[in-house]
């Protein structure tokens, strides 16, 4: 994108708010963009689940083996992909403000008992290359316009 000057202006899309951007800049970091990853997986209960639900064991407490492993894998897979995306920028120092969300998908075509999707959103940051002019902000309380 080009603005009124010859210097190219690349807009950065980020989930960070204005106060956070100001804090980040003051600490010597800048946002690189917005990372979004999603994964939709079908989790199929296997032999371990059948074993756990044997009627002779009664209605006892136990950990569900296949759903635990399945949800673990999808959550970590999404985080790993997000990490790889961020690493494509060599100067990326890390990702802040990661939020993970989980939803069940209504899709019986997979033929399994559980289809879930996990979304992750985060803000990659990098050390600022150039020093920015300091902007002092002031809150004005009240004030009437004529």
């Amino acid at each position, binding site marked *: 994108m080009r603005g009124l000057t010859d210097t190219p202006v690349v807009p950065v899309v980020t*989930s*960070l*708010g204005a*106060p*956070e951007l100001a*804090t*980040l800049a003051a*600490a010597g970091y800048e946002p690189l963009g917005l990372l979004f990853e999603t994964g939709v997986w079908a989790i199929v209960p296997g032999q371990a689940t059948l074993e*756990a639900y044997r009627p002779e064991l*009664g*209605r*006892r*407490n*136990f*950990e*569900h083996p296949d*759903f*635990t*492993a399945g*949800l*673990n*894998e999808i*959550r*970590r*897979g999404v*985080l*790993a992909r*997000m*990490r790889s995306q*961020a*690493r494509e920028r060599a100067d*990326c*120092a*890390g*990702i*802040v*403000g*990661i*939020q*993970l*969300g*989980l*939803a*069940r998908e209504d899709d019986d075509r997979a033929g399994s*008992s*559980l289809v879930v999707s996990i*979304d992750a*959103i*985060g*803000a990659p940051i990098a050390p600022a290359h150039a020093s920015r002019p300091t902007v002092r902000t002031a*809150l004005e309380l009240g004030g009437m316009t004529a």
Partner: protein
Amino acid sequence: MTDDTTYDAASTAGVPEHGRERIARMREQPRFFTSDLTVNEFLLVKEAGFDPLGLVVGSSIYHIGFQSRTWNKNQELDVLTQAMYHARELAMTRMEEEADQLGADGVVGVRLEVGRYEWGTDLAEFIAIGTAVKHSEGLLHRAPNGRPFTSDLSGQDFWTLLTAGYRPLGLVMGNCVYHVAHQGLANWFKQIGRNQEMPNFTQALYDARELAMERMQTEAERLEAEGIVAVQLHERSHGWGSHVIEFFAIGTAVLPIREDHQIPPPSLVLTLNDPLGREGGNRLP
């Protein structure tokens, strides 16, 4: 309450292939981190002398058993209490093991959540999620049991705690699932049209709350903590009906690291942040 959750710092049992790859890559690239900390939290954790290493997650999907109850009797449902505690402990232990494999001294901003889904009426997912951190100058900050410390304090509270001369030892919790007795018909008739205390209900909630608090306190004493800060007491029914309630107490056990506990003089702050949402944007559903 018995705790049969074994801790193995090198364990990758239950960690899927993606998880093992992610941990290995994070170890190879120690200068890159992932975190659910907000910008302010991230900067204050750095200011406190810690580097974030990565987002760590532990989870367990647990089948919660069944326990019969007497209609007109106040009683703890220990099968359900045990299930809710054990599943949380499994999730926490897995999160700590993941942090250990990253070489972390601790985990900050831990959130312990319970999700019930429509696909399993007796199932619940317990998730522990937080950011693993390591002291930048290599000072040992682990808990006395050798595990990375855990804390549900925000980055701001973590910085304030360290600045004031305390350090977190670990997240401590206690719970109690309690059946509150139903009232008999005769009692119900006696109380029609009158303001009066319901001693049966009062006593039941009192007992359950005290049991949860006492168990949390016992955990803190086992860690040799001086106190517990930021205690939260949650009360939830988890779909068991209105007369079965879980009281869950959670807080961060702390220990002094020096004699004086001077803090900077407090100043008045007018916040412009959104009071309804966490800083850093809206949380995904």
